[in-house]
């Protein structure tokens, strides 16, 4: 499947959106326009991280509220989108750290004895997502940033606050674990 088939990721990695940088726009207008332009992509990002639509929407709402409150403190309002994306990721981490969403609302785990079969059925994408949701939080986050947002090692490292080397080893471990769960090899 083409990476663009469901392409919602690119708008989250492009430069921050001219709408947010207009000098004449009020804070409310700027945040509202940014929300209108990017909420879908950000909710999708949070959703693949958390596995819960409600939690994803809450995290994004909270992130935009934070942006709204801190608008005056942004040194460079053209960085508003990276700021809010970082807030969404932090919100997801907070939720995941406490095990609140995702894993409990995700589909049931893949029974080990049927893992190979699951990778071969028509529902293989859902099987892959189930397996992804069984990964440790850090591994899942690294995979989402790499394979959904297509971020580089350095960008993922900056977002996650880890080294690029650790990014690579984390993704390596995650793919190995997925391969194990799905009965394929990376």
């Amino acid at each position: 499947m083409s990476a663009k088939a469901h392409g919602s990721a690119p708008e989250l990695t492009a430069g921050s959106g001219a709408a947010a940088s207009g000098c004449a726009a009020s804070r409310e207008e700027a945040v509202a326009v940014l929300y209108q332009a990017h909420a879908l992509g950000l909710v999708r990002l949070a959703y693949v991280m958390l596995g819960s639509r409600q939690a994803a929407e809450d995290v994004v709402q909270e992130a935009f509220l934070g942006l709204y409150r801190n608008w005056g403190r942004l040194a460079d309002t053209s960085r508003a989108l990276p700021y809010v994306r970082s807030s969404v990721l932090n919100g997801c981490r907070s939720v995941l750290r406490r095990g609140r969403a995702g894993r409990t609302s995700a589909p049931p785990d893949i029974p080990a004895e049927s893992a190979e079969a699951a990778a071969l059925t028509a529902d293989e994408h859902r099987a892959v997502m189930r397996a992804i949701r069984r990964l440790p939080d850090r591994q899942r986050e690294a995979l989402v940033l790499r394979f959904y947002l297509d971020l580089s090692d350095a960008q993922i490292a900056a977002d996650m606050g880890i080294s690029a080397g650790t990014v690579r080893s984390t993704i390596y471990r995650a793919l190995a674990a997925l391969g194990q769960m799905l009965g394929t090899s990376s």
Partner: protein
Amino acid sequence: MNTLEDLVRSSIRQAAAEITPGSIPPLSLGDAGAGVRPAAAATRPARARRGRWSRVIIPLSAAVAVSAVITAVLAVAATRPAGAPAGGSHTADSRPGADRRADAAATLRSQLLDDFFPATGTQFAIGALAEGTIQSLEWSAASRCVVRQGFHAPRPLSALAWARGLADNSQFPDLARIAQTHQLGTGASITGNDVASGARGFLAAWQGCQKAADRVFRPVQQDSSGRLASAWMSIVTRIQASAQVRTAVPGLQACASRYGWPANPFGYPPSRPMRSFGDFANWVVGHLDGAELRGASPAEMSRLNRKWARIFVTCARPIVMLQERLQVAARRSFLRQHGPQVMAMLTQAVRIISRAERRYGVPPGATPG
């Protein structure tokens, strides 16, 4: 690109597409606070659950277990082929302080062993210290780099600060720590926000500096090291999904039932029957989230933390002990099988990190000593 990566990419994008355009609720700003929907309050960091003990318990547990780890390292060393190097250059170092450096290198080596090949929650916590050391040194190196470019240095972050964010209760729960601290939380991870300075151009400079700093440590975590660590994690995953471990899940559920399973105050019903240790861990933590969501006082949160930490340890102990027993045995076998490669990998890592410590050990802005 290989097949698994393609599958992951397309699966994530397909899952994301479940959120359709037009289905997003409108932004509710209210008066910058009043407009927050009640459920959104749950996304606030759980500061009430972070006690001061979470800041000191990892080194305590690490100290207790270090001797056992060193034994394991020596066991690995015993499998080294005759004539192979015995360790880092410190073995021939007769300068003043050589003993101290050798001790530090031995400790670092044992931490690195657990970083790459954890079999227990305690080992995972010890390994996090090595990871924290690397991150802290990278941070320090990047800080010096941005200072040279005219920016202020970000606040210094210690190895322990990094290590705190790395605990993994779902895969390597550290029951000893939880029992001792009565805390399920481990403290916040360090994120990109920690480098925010507000200065224009800072972030780009920081990322460039971090990339340069990363090159120093890249050999520690790539290629053969990554492959060995990945092979080990596959073994752990297989053990935790094994039929032998799954036989312990009904017992875990029975224990949880004594404390109300599957009632969940947070509202997400757990899967029934319990399928994994992760289900149990999420259910326990859900009680604390539920209380926090309802606005429980710090005193009440403290009481609940003690209660649920005790339940967590009581119910989890049998299955965690089983997992750890199997993982410890598997690790022994794994290290025996890959001893020479592991020793070479540890020796190289210690050499790189020790060199970086001498160069970057005191970050700008920190008080030496």
